[in-house]
């Protein structure tokens, strides 16, 4: 299940879409009919407050293994907060989050164990500036996964190869362009061999000419069957990669649908307004 084959992922995609058509939009798709697999991610009744401000309001979301979800919405709509709750960078006030059917716990060891399976890519890359590209990629495998330096270097170089910048391995982050840095950030997350990848506006801080190189890397990853949740305004990416597009506003999931239906026939006025604004 870890790295599902593309054909398998296609299956899952149709399944989840079928579920959605049957179940309507506001509830997570029911357990898949064909197998005992639990959803990769299940969020049930999530409320999140920042002081007196409610950032998430009764959010329910279920993501099947290998499914690709794109979340969009105006700034401040809670979309980043939503995915940051999944790897517990934010704590929720009520509700439950399950990863592979296992509910997240709040003790430090459980949090770390859950995070090992979840990679995250940030808007601002957040590479470690004092380490070389290769060292950025090796630190986790050596210190967290307990791999030897040789093994970690092999893993690091192989993922740098995959994001197509093996030749930059010995440079420092500041010597790379934004697009290259973001691809390193993706490679660094992949070096931990996660089952799920979260992308928090990965192309928003990039110059326009660098957006595509990052999106291409993400498309590659998607075609390998990675479970992905992407907060992004790249609607071309959403159309070609997403199994479902989710629109959030004011901390709520307003609408979710397969990309074709979502873009061609948005049901809610707020979705239409938003799509009109970013088109």
């Amino acid at each position, binding site marked *: 299940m870890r790295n599902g084959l593309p054909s398998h992922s296609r299956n899952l995609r149709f399944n989840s879409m079928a579920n959605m058509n049957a179940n309507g939009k506001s509830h997570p798709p029911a357990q898949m009919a064909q197998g005992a697999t639990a959803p990769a991610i299940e969020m049930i009744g999530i409320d999140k407050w920042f002081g007196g401000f409610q950032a998430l309001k009764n959010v329910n979301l279920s993501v099947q293994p290998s499914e690709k979800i794109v979340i969009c919405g105006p700034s401040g709509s809670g979309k980043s907060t939503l995915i940051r709750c999944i*790897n517990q960078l934010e704590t929720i006030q009520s509700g439950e989050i399950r990863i592979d059917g296992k509910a997240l716990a709040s003790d430090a060891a459980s949090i770390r164990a859950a995070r*090992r399976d979840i*990679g995250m890519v940030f808007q601002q890359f*957040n590479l470690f500036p004092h380490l070389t590209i290769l060292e950025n990629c090796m630190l986790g495998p050596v210190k*967290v996964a307990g791999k030897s330096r040789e093994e970690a270097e092999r893993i690091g170089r192989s993922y740098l190869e995959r994001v197509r910048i093996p030749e930059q391995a010995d440079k420092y982050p500041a010597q790379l362009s934004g697009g290259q840095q973001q691809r390193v*950030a993706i490679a660094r997350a992949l070096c931990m061999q996660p089952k799920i990848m979260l992308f928090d506006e990965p192309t928003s801080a990039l110059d326009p000419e660098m957006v595509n190189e990052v999106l291409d890397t993400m498309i590659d990853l998607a075609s390998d069957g990675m479970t992905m949740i992407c907060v992004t305004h790249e609607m071309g990416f959403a159309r070609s990669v997403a199994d479902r597009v989710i629109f959030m506003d004011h901390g709520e999931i307003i609408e979710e649908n397969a990309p074709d239906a979502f873009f061609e026939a948005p049901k809610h006025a707020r979705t239409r307004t938003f799509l009109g604004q970013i088109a």
Partner: protein
Amino acid sequence: MIREFGPNEIIFIAMAIRWTIALSAIAFVGGGIGGLIIALMRVSDRPVLRALALGFIRLFQGTPLLMQLFIVYFGLNIVGLPTSPWIAAGVALTLHASAFLGEIWRGCIEAVPPGQTEAANALAYSYGVRMRNVILPQAARIAVAPTTGFLVQLIKGTSLASIIGFTELTRAGQIISNATFQPFLVISTVAVLYFILCWPLSLLARRMERRFARATAR
């Protein structure tokens, strides 16, 4: 008998510099270890640790170094330890340096962008790996200049140890001054020696500060 203030006297004072340097080194190394602990407590997730560290810092920043020396000096006696100027000065200056370096380094740790902590957390790094491999190396670069600046303060602060009978540069000056009855000349000599010790460090701190400002400017 009144002695002349001659070469022998100057050499006597100059030789005492090593005790000033030794005491500074003890306080700096001890304060470095203590300061790291205090700084990490100050940025801890646990409110109890943060409060303890803050109390420690407030206590030592809010009282004169001289009082701290006295209290440790006489306190050693009360807890049954031998009253030794070496131990008293070493302990008092170490505690003093721990508080100040702890506060300086807390600021340096907090100056590392929060995205670094988030990335380390998202990658499932433990607290130890996050601090040792990600946060502290970056904080250390920021810390070099203010830490050197504090070292200058610390070296000058060791002069107060003369009052509890620790024979370092200032105390050596007093001894010679009492023997020669030329306090102005003798104390001026002592001051020059402090200046020779501290000035290069101040220059270094300023250079590093400028270099850091240039490196972080965009």
